[in-house]
């Protein structure tokens, strides 16, 4: 087969990844709804297609056909740009994730750094949405958003750095490669440090993604959808897409950092399937937590972050560094 020119690869790979991600995101909403329904002793979407399998398609069509209502007093440019500015970082994080050895869009040396930095940029889109809506509820929610996401990005980064230290590289495929071979090589099974880091990573992810119990941004019963309250139709769909894409991206990152990415029994080409399954496991864990707990208040959330989680992750990072140096220098 003739060699594919590099510029063509640069176009095709992101196209494929984006489409797969969007397809995955839509079906993950169905997965969540079914999972939640079973937890609440009901069935969930059932009628649209066999066992509700066409429900996401129906939802997407509905959102596309909805009337686009824009409040008259809204700041037009910011209001219209906000969903796009919110969506772009959420999609961009998939650029550095390798789905199999050598199968990724741009597996750069600073993969983790790129992921963490870009995922923090969604705050800009959030705040633009809240401000541009010219709505007190949206504004209150946007303020809380900035507060919360900034507070929790630090523990997020520090707990994500623990596997980086253990692997010795920022490149995502290196981190995954170190965990290949056997089950016990996965970083989640690293004595004490691995488990603690995983737990703190999950907690920080919950907060950075606005998931219950930290979903004060969109607290339905107080702020009635928060920063999204004035969006309808396709713009709302873009915001939903961005949120779930970010959630899936963080699940993939958790699977890569802690659960060994594509390591699993069977032949090599089953790697991406294992990766997907592990990411779905993390996603279901987060969903399970979501449907079991009530949310806590904003000042309690910030107190948890600054007083408990940040010192804990910092301490864990330093401990990991000490342990790594100790082991490499021989003992």
């Amino acid at each position, binding site marked *: 087969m003739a060699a594919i020119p590099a510029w063509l690869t640069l176009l095709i790979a992101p196209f494929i990844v984006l489409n797969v991600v969007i397809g995955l995101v839509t079906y993950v909403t169905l997965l969540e709804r079914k999972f*939640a329904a079973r*937890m*609440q*002793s*009901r069935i969930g979407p059932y009628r649209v297609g066999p066992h509700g399998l066409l429900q996401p398609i129906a939802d997407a069509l509905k959102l596309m056909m909805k009337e686009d209502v824009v409040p008259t007093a809204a700041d037009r440019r910011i209001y219209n740009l906000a969903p796009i500015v919110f969506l772009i970082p959420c999609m961009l994080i998939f650029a550095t994730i390798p789905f199999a050895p050598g199968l990724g869009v741009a597996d750069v040396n600073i993969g983790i750094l790129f992921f963490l930095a870009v995922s923090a940029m969604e705050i800009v889109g959030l705040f633009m949405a809240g401000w541009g809506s010219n709505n*007190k*509820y949206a504004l*209150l929610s946007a303020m*809380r958003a900035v507060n919360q996401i900034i507070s929790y990005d630090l523990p997020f980064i520090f707990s994500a750095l623990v596997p980086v230290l253990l692997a010795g590289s920022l490149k995502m495929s290196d981190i995954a490669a170190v965990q290949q071979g056997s089950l016990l090589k996965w970083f989640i099974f690293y004595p004490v440090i691995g488990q603690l880091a995983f737990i703190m990573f999950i907690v920080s992810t919950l907060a950075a993604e606005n998931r*219950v*119990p930290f*979903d*004060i941004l*969109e*607290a*339905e*019963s*107080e702020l*009635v959808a928060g920063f999204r309250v004035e969006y309808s139709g396709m713009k709302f769909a873009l915001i939903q897409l961005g949120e779930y894409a970010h959630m899936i991206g963080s699940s993939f990152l958790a699977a890569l950092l802690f659960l060994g990415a594509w390591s699993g029994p069977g032949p090599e080409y089953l790697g991406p399937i294992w990766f997907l399954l592990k990411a779905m496991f993390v996603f279901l864990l987060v969903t399970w937590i*979501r*449907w*079991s*707990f*009530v*949310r*806590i*208040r*904003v*000042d*309690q959330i910030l107190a948890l972050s600054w007083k408990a989680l940040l010192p804990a992750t910092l301490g864990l990072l330093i401990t990991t560094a000490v342990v790594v140096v100790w082991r490499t220098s021989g003992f």
Partner: protein
Amino acid sequence: MLDVNNTTRVEMDWSGPERLQMNMGPQHPSAHGVFRAILGLQGETVVDVDAVIGYLHRCHEKLSETLTYAQYPSIASKTDYVAAMTSEFAYVLAAEEIGKFEVPKRAQYLRVIVAELQRIASHLLWLGTWCMDMGGALGGGATIFLYCIREREDILDLFESLVGARLLYGFFQVGGVRYDLPDGWAAQCRSTIERINSRIDEYEQMLVDNAFFLARTQGVGVVSRELAQDVGIAGPLLRGSGVNYDIRRNAPYSSYQDFDFRVPVETGGDCYARYRVRMAEFRQAISIIRQALDKLPAGPISSRPALKSVAQIRIPKGEAYARVEGPRGEVGTYLISDGSAKPYRMKWRGASFSNLAILPHIIPGHKVADVVAIMGSVDPVFGEVDR
């Protein structure tokens, strides 16, 4: 807003940079009905609450002057529509007190059974909606909401086989009750309350060890004993603040003195204390129903002849104030009769109206999220607030 002594009204100072006046309701997912709270915010802290009510005002008190004593009990259930049985109860008790009508023992026991079943159903709805308010319609709160609604459906099925209606009944009439138990109702009732008893234990387990739930409810919305009595709140709110007062115990009506039950009292005064009072009331209500079903005497269900015309019931001139312990507190009717077929004046003392009056006194100083938790633990029903 009221000044620090809570006596005079002062104008708010809107000059600072973080002041915001936010409107909650009347269309709001957690306003428990139509209720508008104009919150004055300083950052995230509420400094002023102006509660605007009256969206559901139908002037029951004027309406009762145009309806006879036989017609009004069905309308009375529309005040507290979540606990319709206890609403009708207060009205017929007042009419019977003026007219000095004897209510047969069987009717009294049936009234007790139905009132306690209604208390369980109302508290189930309270638990579900409160958790939903705190957890979001798409979060953990919705899970408990759906479980509680599933239990409540069983009780509504019982009511449907007894009366024919699920939410608003016409079960009470002056002199007794209107319907007798159908076959198999007692057995179905027993099995339902056994099932609910075990499920309540499950829900309590889900909540009581949950650190998030405790963080949201402990220390929030503290009502002191003195404030509780001064404002006139009643029911679980009063007992949650340490005042041991239950109308079923202190001023028994309709043979409540025949039953052996405990009145739960907590001294915390916060949302968590009120939660514990209501959870204990579940179990006491189940115990009362069991005792009533065991001791149910045979006999007539009404001391008045069956109704053939709406103006049949005549009550001599007089006045009375009769009250019942509803799920939300003291539901009372102050009835003045002038000897004709219709009352001269009826004042409806709605439990939720007095309970809601506590909000401007306890909310300032809390965060916006606490407003929702406090409103849920006060558990207002706006049919009673606005009448």
